[in-house]
């Protein structure tokens, strides 16, 4: 085992985790930042995205690329719409009261999970990636003829994994532009700063809330559609990513998009590298320790704004 190619592999694996985690955690952070709602059902929106991607891919059939692209649009739309319905029929009715929203979203979690179990079943089902070529990871070594490139025994990744990383970066940039450069983003930020003043200026706060909740759930679903060709859709798949998202959001700083992304990369990379060099359990231990230290020494998170 050579150290350096090992490091590259660990980084790629870590970045794939980070990419998916960043998208999901940004959704969670957005919902919390704007609405002050702790959405415990966020992991189930993720799971639902993966399951719907399977349904879409199964129904459309044909070339994997076509069904995958269809899933990429349809699954987040459906999940987002479901979240909007949940917002207007449940969360709005309990006035976004912090304690009650936690309980309500726990209920939502169970409903989504059990309905999925009853309809989709307990199987893990694969979705075919749109493309998937194996790439050997090269490295350099000194031989008698000088520096030469070689391909270590059995060390490979796939084009699709690299594409997931790239696609997530594009999406995150798009969200950043949406929040900072568009009128909708301005309205969302205004609502985040002060709900009542925003309302006084004629912003339809109810609509903004519904939209943000839908957007947050849609992002979780999108993350799931990206990961489902690598892993598989399973009705229990939402739990671990939910916990990791909470960790990321706390480390990054509540409501701070940049902080969330930084924390996702930090957690993803450390998970990948520590898992490769030591054990995945140690990676989880360290992630949780980081949360503890961040809470002690920087309670507002790495990039959380110190609000007055």
């Amino acid at each position, binding site marked *: 085992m050579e150290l350096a190619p090992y490091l590259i*592999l660990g980084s790629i694996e870590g970045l794939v985790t980070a990419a998916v985690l960043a998208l999901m955690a940004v959704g969670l952070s957005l919902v919390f930042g704007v609405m002050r709602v702790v959405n*415990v059902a966020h992991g189930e929106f993720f799971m639902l995205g993966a399951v719907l991607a399977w349904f879409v891919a199964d129904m459309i059939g044909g070339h994997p690329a076509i069904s995958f692209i269809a899933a990429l649009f349809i699954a987040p739309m459906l999940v987002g719409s479901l979240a909007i319905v949940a917002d207007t029929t449940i969360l709005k009715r309990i006035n976004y009261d912090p304690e009650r929203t936690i309980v309500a979203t726990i209920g939502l979690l169970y409903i989504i999970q059990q309905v999925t179990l009853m309809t989709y079943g307990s199987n893990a089902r694969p979705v075919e990636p749109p493309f998937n070529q194996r790439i050997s990871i090269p490295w350099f070594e000194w031989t008698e003829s000088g520096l030469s490139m070689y391909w270590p025994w059995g060390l*490979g990744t796939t084009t699709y994994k690299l594409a997931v990383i790239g696609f997530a970066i594009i999406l995150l940039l798009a969200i950043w532009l949406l929040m900072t450069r568009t009128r909708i983003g301005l309205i969302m930020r205004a609502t985040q700063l002060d709900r009542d003043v925003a309302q006084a200026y004629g912003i339809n706060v109810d609509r903004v809330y519904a939209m943000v909740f839908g957007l947050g759930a849609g992002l979780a679903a999108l993350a799931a559609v990206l990961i489902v060709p690598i892993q598989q859709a399973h009705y229990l798949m939402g739990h671990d990513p*939910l916990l990791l998202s*909470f960790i990321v959001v706390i480390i990054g700083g509540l409501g701070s998009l940049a902080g969330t992304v930084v924390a996702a990369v930090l957690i993803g990379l450390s998970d990948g590298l520590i898992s490769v060099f030591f054990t995945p359990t140690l990676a989880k231990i360290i992630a949780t320790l980081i949360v503890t230290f961040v809470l002690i020494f920087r*309670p507002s998170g790495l990039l959380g704004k110190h609000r007055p």
Partner: protein
Amino acid sequence: MTKTSKPILKPLLTPRLTGRRQVLKGAAASLALGAVSMPLMGRYAQTQSAEPIKIGFQVHRTGIGAAYGRWYDRTTMAAVDKINSEGGINGRPIEIIAEDDGTDPKRGAEVVEKFATQHNADLAFGTLFSHVVYGSAPRAGELKIPYFVVSEGHHVASGALNRYTLQPGITDVKSQVQAMAPFVADNLGKKVTMVYPDFAFGHDHRDYFSAAIEAQGGKVIEKIAIPPTETSFTKYFPKIPRDTEVIYHVMVGPAVLTFVKEMGEFFGSSRPEIFGFIDSLEATDLSSPGLEFLEGTYFWEGNPRYAQANQSEYDKAYRAAVGVDANGASVSDTKDVSTYAHMFGCWETLHIVKAGMEASGYSGTGDRAKLIEAVEAMTDMPHSHAHPQGAKRFNGKTHQTFGHQYITRVNNSRLDLVHTTSIEDTLYPDEVDYTKQSF
């Protein structure tokens, strides 16, 4: 419905502090939720009419064992239909009371308790995952209800359990693994890297294969344990040493397809020899995209998934009764691949229960000890309609059965039989004598 507006004071409270606490609360809540499993889909006993023999069926309907549970259920129902249509047990029909154990040891023990106290079942039967057996068997012993497991773990024969727990219908990991080692060492290579799930079942593989391959002059050069709930595997593969001649893999859970696919992506065309336990691909279609690299690799199978050239009339009848086609998939859905290497154990165990009850003149729960003694007295069981997987030799002292093992090779996306072990290959010295324990 009246709509109340948000209290005007709310924004004046410090949002930052309350916010963080809120998130922590949410995180704590989600943690707690992970620990709770919901009891599901209980099926309740009907009123006694024809005095049926009530068999409590502990089944993995949900959780990581769900694919096995689905097929254990179908096999069990097919066996019950067969036995009932042939006159039942001592003229009494079998009634199955199925309860989901969620593939969870704590729930498993509750299910056993429910069979004993609420349903007043004659015996408990069924489950596969070894941690559930470990969790449930002590309760079965306390409640003095016979517990027939179909788990293939070594826990029964190791002496860790009790007189009420028996495994007469499926062989255990220790004997399977031991019988594989000569084939691996003679045909594939002597330097082995093992990849296995990090719980009792995987540890059985690790311990018994390491010892068995050393007896053949080989060596396990690296042991890679993977948590059974893991969903991504590439990060484990770099630990495989370069001088590995054979990879020995066994994996369980919903992510098995990902595991095998990522192994292929890791190695590309330069793979070493690969020997796997079919557990890594149970209920998974061998022609799934990404599995092409398995061509020419070998598998242990408890019972060959694909109908072989020398298929017995017993396998033919059993296959038809359960509803499995010649490729090991459901006759009604070719994508629904069975857990063919394991589920025969349910069929055979129910036939053994029938034989044991008839030999002991079983009449009710008062005769439970007599039933166990009758099963303990059993030895050779011939290849027959009751034992379609092959002949068995039951050891009454260790409560464990021994039988033939099959090694198949992937040829054109199907598994062709290349080697059948003898029963003698699978025997090892007794580690316990349960018959010395009192009832």
